[in-house]
């Protein structure tokens, strides 16, 4: 991180504050400009962070000197501030600890809240986003009841023909558009590149209501049969691929073998359906004409007509489904899920982000408890001073005000420092986010977030002071004076408050560590679990040959056969194989199938990959029964299939899978295949379970696109470069990107999220424990100091070390245990929510809780022992002298 920007931008919030102080006329704007110029001159070539910090300091100093420039109210304010500073500067340690503690909590909360705000709360960047809905056709058998937005989000399964029927029959929508993500080779410049895009109907743009930045977006005439192929570019692609040339609009570009007319460029913040979408192409004749209804690949987005609600739209789509089922029996088994687009967009991240925010708040709470502790001790310490004040006629409200004012001031500093910490952490943090959280580009610390932090800071200032202020307000003066005189433990009330705080801190630490432990264990379990295939010396690349799409099957076979022969001659490559879909590579389909079992044919949809005979060996997938494919499985011979162990277990438990039959395709047009072998299970991604899957022979299902698997022998390091060179020679217009499966594992979105979430939660858990330990240490040390005289008396009366330890630690141990039990209870209660937010394996058993209990109790004990040992060293003579 720490990018070197030539022209640093001031932090937005700070600049707003400056603007607010100087006004927005030309005088004010020139002052703001001066500040910018000065920042650019000083910090233009240093890391942006420094510039931001400098600017904040600038605004702070400006506030003091500009307002204080001679007018009386400014003077009063400055004097007031100076007074508070002076009072606190007598206890710099206290001020430092309080500000630091609050800053950590507020910083973490700010960051977490900025994420929640940017991803979950902020309305989608479209016109009236509340009116946008997402529609997916689903098979209810595959959905939980009630269905969730999270499942519907990834469920691209609506056929084009079905969508066009929706368009005609539905009455609730002003605009309705269909979309699906895709990717293709852009042949532009020296080197072809693979770009991510979407096929869309014009209704998508109409519904979202975002105008093109340049040219136009799709219009209804682009959706019809025979329309000229058109493409709309993203701002990013236009900048990167076309040098931001306005003349790009109107040009013809070649994507995946088809010529498209560029009709427009969308603005930079338009990111639909995802942030990686770089181009939008129209449906084209093939999709417009498609009459398949058994399976699809689209989702739809609709804008509600004015006055129509979500419930009515759902009802409307139910009616549409019934009508359609009457005409097309294939539609019978499906229903339409309708969810707000916002929910669909962020469904995957919602729970995780909320848990992070919760964790940050817990850290903040532990911090507040600590600070309250400190204030409580301070007010107890100042008890006699207050008592004297009161005796001289100060009301208890005024005394409470003293504590309150001080804590507000400290909270303000904590808030400012916390805000700065969050600002400083934002950039490195965002750098870790892409491909992890949707809408990551919209996360920012701006006025909205600043406002929340301000409210939080003021609230904290009051909260933190509340307990001590009440304590001060209510304390009976006589008692205080007497207690002070006796040098006892600060009164019963104070002890009770301290006790509450110890219990709370331990409980919160246990809760947070349990959550962190759960995420960490889940991440570890998922990462360590056997994916079922080799990762370290296996590479893959994706090859699509547009001109072969409509070629004769044997031409496709010959082409890929030649390519494999060529690749196997690359130094270091030991084996080359083909697969239509394979773990960690995008895009896979689950076609309908029928499985013959002892209870008849079961209709289902299953993973299915078309592979060459070398695939299992190249991927280190063991053949467990029967055989793999071989040269005899060719076009015209008996259709054969190889099944995964999981599939065999599910459909033919206890039976030999070899010789069973699987029908590929629907009841009407399917072809029966004979199972000739069974292989080990694989997982298609970090968060996925073992695939129920069957393989088909590449020779029997030739295609124009394949994933190519390269198994490395000695000299593996050079494989990516040499492969790219060989491919470039063979296929100059096909983009090639070779990566090891190990790298692809680490690019997995779920993997990245699981890792990030466990790192963040562990960090927050660690901070919470640290704060709790500091707090507990503080309370005990303070208690020992307060009881120095009492302990001195015990020692002089012959008290043993054991007795003294027990008197110091006894109550504390009980409190810690109570806190632990409470924390474990909270962890158990919140467990189901936490577990449902996990993307990978779900750890079971009590081990996490047991470990967490051990860690917290051990740490807390150490924190308690130090002051306890100090109590043992109390010298009775010194003890008496101190009073």
């Amino acid at each position, binding site marked *: 991180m720490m990018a070197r920007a030539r022209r640093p*931008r001031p932090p937005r919030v700070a600049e707003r504050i400056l603007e607010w102080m100087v006004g927005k006329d030309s005088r004010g704007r*020139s002052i703001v*400009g*001066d500040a910018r*110029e000065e920042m650019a*001159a000083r910090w233009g070539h240093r890391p942006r962070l420094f510039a931001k910090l400098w600017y904040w300091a600038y605004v702070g100093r400006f*506030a003091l000197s500009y307002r204080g420039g001679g007018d009386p109210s400014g003077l009063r304010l400055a004097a007031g501030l100076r007074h508070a500073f002076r009072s606190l500067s007598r206890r710099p340690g206290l001020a430092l600890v309080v500000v630091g503690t609050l800053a950590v909590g507020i910083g973490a909360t700010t960051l977490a809240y900025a994420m929640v705000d940017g991803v979950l709360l902020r309305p989608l960047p479209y016109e009236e986003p509340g009116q946008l809905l997402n529609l997916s056709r689903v098979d209810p058998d595959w959905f939980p009841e009630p269905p969730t937005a999270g499942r519907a989000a990834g469920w691209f399964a609506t056929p084009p023909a079905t969508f066009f029927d929706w368009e005609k029959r539905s009455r609730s929508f002003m605009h309705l558009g269909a979309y699906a993500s895709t990717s293709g080779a852009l042949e532009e410049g020296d080197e072809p590149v693979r770009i991510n895009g979407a096929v869309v109907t014009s209704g998508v743009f109409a519904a979202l209501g975002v105008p093109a930045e340049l040219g136009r977006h799709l219009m209804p005439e682009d959706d019809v049969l025979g329309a000229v192929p058109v493409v709309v570019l993203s701002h990013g692609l236009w900048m990167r691929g076309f040098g931001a040339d306005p003349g790009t609009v109107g040009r013809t570009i070649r994507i995946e073998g088809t010529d498209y007319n560029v009709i427009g460029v969308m603005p930079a913040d338009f990111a639909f359906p995802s942030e990686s979408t770089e181009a939008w192409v129209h449906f084209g004749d093939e999709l417009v004409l498609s009459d398949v209804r058994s399976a699809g690949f689209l989702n739809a987005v609709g804008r509600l007509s004015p006055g129509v609600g979500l419930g009515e739209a759902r009802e409307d789509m139910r009616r549409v489904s019934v009508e359609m089922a009457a005409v097309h029996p294939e539609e019978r088994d499906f229903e339409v899920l309708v969810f707000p687009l916002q929910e669909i967009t962020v469904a995957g991240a919602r729970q995780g982000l909320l848990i992070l925010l919760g964790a940050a708040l817990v850290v903040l709470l532990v911090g507040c408890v600590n600070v309250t502790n400190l204030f409580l001790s301070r007010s107890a310490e100042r008890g006699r001073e207050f008592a004297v004040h009161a005796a001289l006629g100060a009301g208890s409200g005024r005394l409470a005000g003293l504590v309150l004012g001080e804590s507000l001031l400290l909270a303000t500093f904590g808030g400012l420092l916390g805000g700065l910490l969050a600002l400083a952490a934002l950039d490195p943090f965002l750098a870790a986010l892409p491909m992890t959280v949707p809408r990551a580009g919209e996360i920012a610390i701006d006025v909205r977030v600043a406002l929340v932090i301000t409210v939080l800071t003021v609230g904290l200032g009051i909260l933190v002071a509340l307990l001590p202020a009440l304590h001060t307000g209510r304390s009976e003066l006589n008692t205080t004076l007497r207690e002070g005189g006796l040098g006892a433990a600060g009164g019963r009330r104070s002890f009770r408050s301290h006790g509450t705080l110890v219990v709370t801190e331990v409980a919160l630490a246990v809760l947070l560590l349990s959550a962190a432990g759960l995420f960490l264990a889940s991440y570890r379990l998922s990462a360590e679990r056997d994916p079922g295939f080799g990762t370290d010396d296996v590479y893959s690349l994706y090859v699509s040959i547009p001109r072969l799409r409509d070629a004769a099957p044997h031409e496709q076979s010959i082409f890929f056969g030649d390519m494999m022969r060529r690749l196997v001659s690359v130094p270091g490559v030991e084996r080359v194989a083909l697969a239509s879909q394979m773990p960690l590579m995008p895009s896979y389909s689950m076609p309908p199938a029928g499985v013959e079992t002892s209870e008849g044919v079961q209709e289902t949809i299953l993973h299915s990959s078309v592979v060459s005979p070398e695939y299992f060996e190249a991927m280190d997938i063991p053949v467990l029964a029967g055989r793999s494919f071989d040269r005899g499985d060719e076009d015209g011979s008996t259709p054969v299939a190889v099944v995964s162990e999981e599939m065999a277990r599910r459909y033919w438990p206890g039976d030999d899978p070899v010789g069973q039959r699987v029908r590929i395709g629907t009841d009407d047009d399917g072809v029966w295949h004979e199972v000739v072998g069974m292989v080990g299970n694989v997982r298609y991604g970090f968060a996925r379970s073992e695939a129920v899957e069957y393989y088909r022979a590449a020779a029997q299902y030739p295609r124009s696109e394949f994933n190519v698997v390269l198994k490395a022998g000695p000299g593996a390091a050079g494989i990516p470069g040499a492969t790219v060179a060989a491919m470039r020679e063979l296929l100059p217009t096909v983009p090639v990107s070779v990566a090891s499966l190990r790298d692809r594992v680490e690019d997995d979105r779920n993997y990245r999220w699981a890792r990030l979430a466990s790192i963040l939660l562990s960090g927050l858990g660690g901070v919470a424990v640290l704060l709790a330990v500091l707090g507990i240490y503080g309370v005990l040390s303070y208690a020992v100091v307060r009881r120095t005289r009492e302990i001195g008396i015990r020692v002089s009366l012959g008290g043993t070390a054991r007795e003294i330890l027990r008197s110091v630690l006894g109550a504390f141990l009980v409190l810690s245990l109570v806190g632990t039990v409470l924390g474990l209870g909270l962890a158990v209660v919140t467990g189901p929510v936490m577990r449902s937010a996990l993307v990978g394996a779900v750890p079971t058993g009590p081990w996490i809780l047991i470990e967490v209990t051990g860690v917290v109790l051990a740490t807390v004990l150490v924190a308690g022992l130090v002051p306890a040992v100090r109590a043992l060293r109390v010298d009775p003579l010194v003890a008496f002298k101190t009073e």
Partner: protein
Amino acid sequence: MGKKPMGEVEHLVLLAVLRLGGGAFALDVLRELDREAGHVVSRGSLYKTMERLEAKGLLTWEVEDGSPERGGHPRRRFSVTEAGILELAEARARLMNMWKGVGGLLETDR
């Protein structure tokens, strides 16, 4: 006279603007004060002082378009008004008057 005499900072700011000739921008004034008078003024006080001088009719400014590093914000070119020059001259005369006969004393003190 009825009007308040200039403070030291006001005095220095006017002189700095004059010394800079035609092109006195706020940041230049700041640098000039620092370099020539060894006087570090905080930004806030500088702008406040300039506003006071403006209110007294001693300082004036006109707006110019800003450069990119100013984020498009305008900048002000300051100049001392005629009244300002008169005021400076008066102030100098007052001071010179008061200095009469004191110079030698200070020198022997050194």
